[in-house]
């Protein structure tokens, strides 16, 4: 989780990721942010994010992202 | 249950208030009382001016689209035969609309003849015509909707179109240089129809019924227009008139009798007549009316003096046309309107 927050801070440091739950819905994280984000988390956590995972629910909050990462690591 | 009744009552109340308001606004919507007649322009112009004619003075109505209004000059008919006519058509007129135009015209008048230019009988578009089934009766009965554009007159300067019993003078010349035997050719515009839709027939029957009840004679005619007529179409119109039991004349087969000069008489290369062509067609129609109807010559009748006055103004405008061409009138309308006003004042002074 620490690592994930670091990655997010790197993309945009003006957001409080611990509490924000509408990162996608409110366009806080834009499409280009997502591109960077996915590159980073795939490398850091050694996972493959595929098209099926690309839903707002998976990216709306740091918590949701973290649970997605854990799920993908298990597989 | 109670909530449901309450809701239904609410809807009924809402609709009633709406209707009452619409009725009040409609009663208030009397353009001719609010404004100078000249302020009412475009499509409403002839409609309003028609209702303003002195009671029971108009004998001949001429209806149709722009081909009809550019081809018939009531003031010239007066000059030649002493019959009183009025153009009640409009650009791109539709059958549904025309039925209510005729109804409107007959509110204060007892015309004896209705001239119908045949081109608009062919005009048809299912979508719009279906819409009109609904909208036209509403517009006719609800002046608020019919005249809703009238507010524009408040912010705009007086219009430039000067109507003479529904005719506007246009002296622009663009000669027709196509073949003389245009009747034997195909129409260039393939989108034009050769038949009559059942909706148009339905409206025509309503018009006919209305006229029969009032003893109005219907004469369908096809005016001179190489762009819009060929033999196929004229035969269709003739057939239509025969089926409906009304008179029909085609002027395209009588070019020499009418005396059309192709270099001078058309406004847009054989589509519409200009004033020169209009005079000739009007004269021909006048002779036809003289022969085939029992219209009365009102010239010299004290009750019709306004027609003589109009004739003078009309001729003055025709003279001005030599100075200010049709195209210029749009650009110089401010100047020209001033001039007209000045002249009006002067003529009043003289009286």
């Amino acid at each position, binding site marked *: 989780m620490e690592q994930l927050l670091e990655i997010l801070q790197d993309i945009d440091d003006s957001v409080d990721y611990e509490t924000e739950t509408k990162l996608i819905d409110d366009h806080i994280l834009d*499409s280009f942010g*997502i591109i960077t984000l996915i590159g980073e988390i795939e490398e850091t956590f050694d996972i493959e994010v595929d098209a*099926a995972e690309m839903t707002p629910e998976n990216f709306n909050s740091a918590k949701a992202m973290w649970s997605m990462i854990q799920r993908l690591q298990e597989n | 249950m109670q909530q449901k009744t309450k809701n239904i009552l609410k809807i009924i109340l809402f609709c009633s208030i709406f209707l009452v308001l619409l009725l009040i606004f409609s009663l208030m919507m009397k353009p001719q009382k609010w404004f100078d007649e000249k302020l009412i322009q475009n499509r409403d112009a002839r409609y309003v001016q028609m209702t303003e004619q002195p009671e029971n003075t108009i004998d001949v109505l001429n209806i149709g689209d722009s081909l009809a209004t550019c081809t018939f000059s009531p003031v010239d008919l007066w000059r030649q035969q002493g019959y009183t006519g009025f153009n009640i058509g409009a650009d791109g007129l539709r059958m549904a609309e025309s039925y209510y135009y005729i109804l409107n015209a007959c509110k204060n008048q007892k015309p004896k003849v209705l001239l119908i230019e045949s081109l608009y009988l062919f005009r048809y578009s299912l979508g719009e015509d279906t819409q009109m089934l609904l909208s036209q009766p509403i517009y006719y009965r609800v002046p608020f909707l019919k005249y809703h554009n009238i507010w524009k007159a408040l912010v705009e300067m007086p219009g430039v179109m000067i109507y003479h019993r529904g005719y506007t003078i246009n002296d622009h010349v663009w000669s027709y240089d196509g073949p003389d035997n245009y009747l034997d050719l195909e129409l260039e515009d393939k989108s034009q129809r050769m038949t009559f839709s059942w909706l148009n027939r339905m409206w025509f029957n309503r018009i006919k019924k209305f006229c029969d009840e009032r003893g109005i004679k219907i004469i369908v005619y096809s005016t001179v227009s190489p762009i819009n007529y060929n033999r196929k179409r004229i035969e269709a119109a003739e057939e239509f008139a025969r089926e409906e039991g009304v008179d029909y004349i085609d002027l395209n087969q009588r070019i020499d009798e009418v005396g059309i000069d192709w270099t001078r008489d058309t406004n847009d290369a054989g589509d519409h007549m200009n004033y020169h062509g209009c005079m000739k067609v009007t004269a021909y129609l006048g002779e036809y009316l003289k022969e085939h109807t029992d219209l009365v010559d009102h010239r010299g009748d004290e009750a019709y003096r306004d027609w003589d006055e109009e004739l003078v103004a009309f001729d003055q405008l025709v003279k001005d046309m030599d100075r200010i061409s049709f195209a210029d009138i749009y650009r110089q309308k401010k100047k020209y309107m001033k001039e007209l006003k000045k002249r009006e004042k002067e003529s009043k002074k003289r009286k």
Partner: protein
Amino acid sequence: MAIHTNLYLLVFLPLVMLIYQLVPRNKRWGVLLSASYVLYFSFSRFLVLLLMATSAFTWKIALWMDDLGAQSAQKQKECADRKQKSEVKKDFQKKRVKVLRLGVLVLLGILFYVNYYNFVAQNVNVFLGALGAKLPMARVLFPMGISFYTLEAVGYMADVYWERYPAEKHLGKVALFLSFFPQIMEGPIARFPDTAEALFSGAPIQMANINEGLLRILWGLSKKMVVSDRLTLLTNLIFGNYKNYHGSFIIMAAITYTIQLYMEFSGSIDIVIGSGKIFGVTIPENFNQPFSAQSAAEFWRRWHMSLGNWFKNYVFYPMTVSPMVKNWSKKARKKYGKYWSMVGTSAMALFPVWVATGVWHGAGWKYLFYGMYYFVILLLGVALEPLKEKRNKKLGIDPNASWFKTLRILKTWVIIFTGELFFNAKTLTAGFEMFFSIFGNFHISSIWKYWPDDLLTTGDVYAIVGGCIIVWIVGFLKEHGWDARKKILESATPARWSILFTLVFALLLFGAYGTGYQPVDLIYAGF
């Protein structure tokens, strides 16, 4: 019978409401579906059969994929070890991909055929002409709304493929989702969970929903009839005879076309959403004050949102995470660093999105250009981001200062107007000629000298300007958290009714309608 006509608003809609309410709840979806097909028939005649076939096909493909998924799960259970399991899974996944491909290819194939066949044939013939060969032109009938329902169907199939939700078993529900009558002409492009449940549930019509729906319809109709329909004449005149007009008129036409398009498109979407609301269906929004966007990217998040979202979900994201793009970006990171890898990845993901967005609007080089125009601008936006930050720091600009925001909004306007100029030009060549005439032949005074006042009189100009100001104020207030529509609906009955009556009569008075006035067709219904 388009949705802005009196036939729809005064006859069709009330009739459907009445029948809907009288029919037992479990059959109401049938009323909506029949109404949809009747409306569709009124535009496209027997092409309604194509719509029905498309619905059945979409329904079947989704079920097929679900079925394969179920089989896969069953087989996996029977497997002993992990390796075997993943093998089975892979096997079935391959089959599911094939089914998805079949579905997408068939639907896009039809869309391609009706939209682009003649265009492609024409351009191919230019080359074949030299060889003396020729592709025949096809007389293609255009099925209304095909661009919209095809995207909905493809989205649905893709979502089922990704197991975002299960395939719908009831054919009627899928058919109704694809053909719901307000949406069929101009969208918005919905996703299955957005509307399907509400459409199918047959919930009774609520008074509150009627209020909300009618207010929305009235608002949309006003935008279209007071502003947009008036501007149509002017823009058509200038775009149609652009060679006769000075650059100042071209600029004006680009602006008026943009306003016209916005008022008309967002207005008819208001009618769509309002109509849906009456039946208790919340159709997704399509516009969100697009002219307060501070960048081209933001503009596309506020303008035709449902299209943008569709491309984001079904083209952009899948591209971003596709193995090809990922591999490239991994390599690029090592070789060129973070920045260039990010720019390159964006380019690769954005390119197909904007080719598709352009081409989706129709056949013609100008639409392709329109897509590429935004591709370049958006990519530049990404690439220049670090530079802009540096500049702001150096010059001490606060990016949140209101003057800076205003400047950005104005810059975005220029981008939008230019884009729409090419979008509405007759051809791409005409677009360029118009664009360059702005620089070569500009006389501001020619506007009042040559104003076509037989088309747009002083009164019309007042109505247009007044309408724009009101729409702007309402949008501005909404942008700052004060939703006028909500406030009206929340107010007490007498106040609400007075506002409603004022709106209705203002519309009846200032709307451009009536005898001799031709109702203007919906622009986006042509796409």
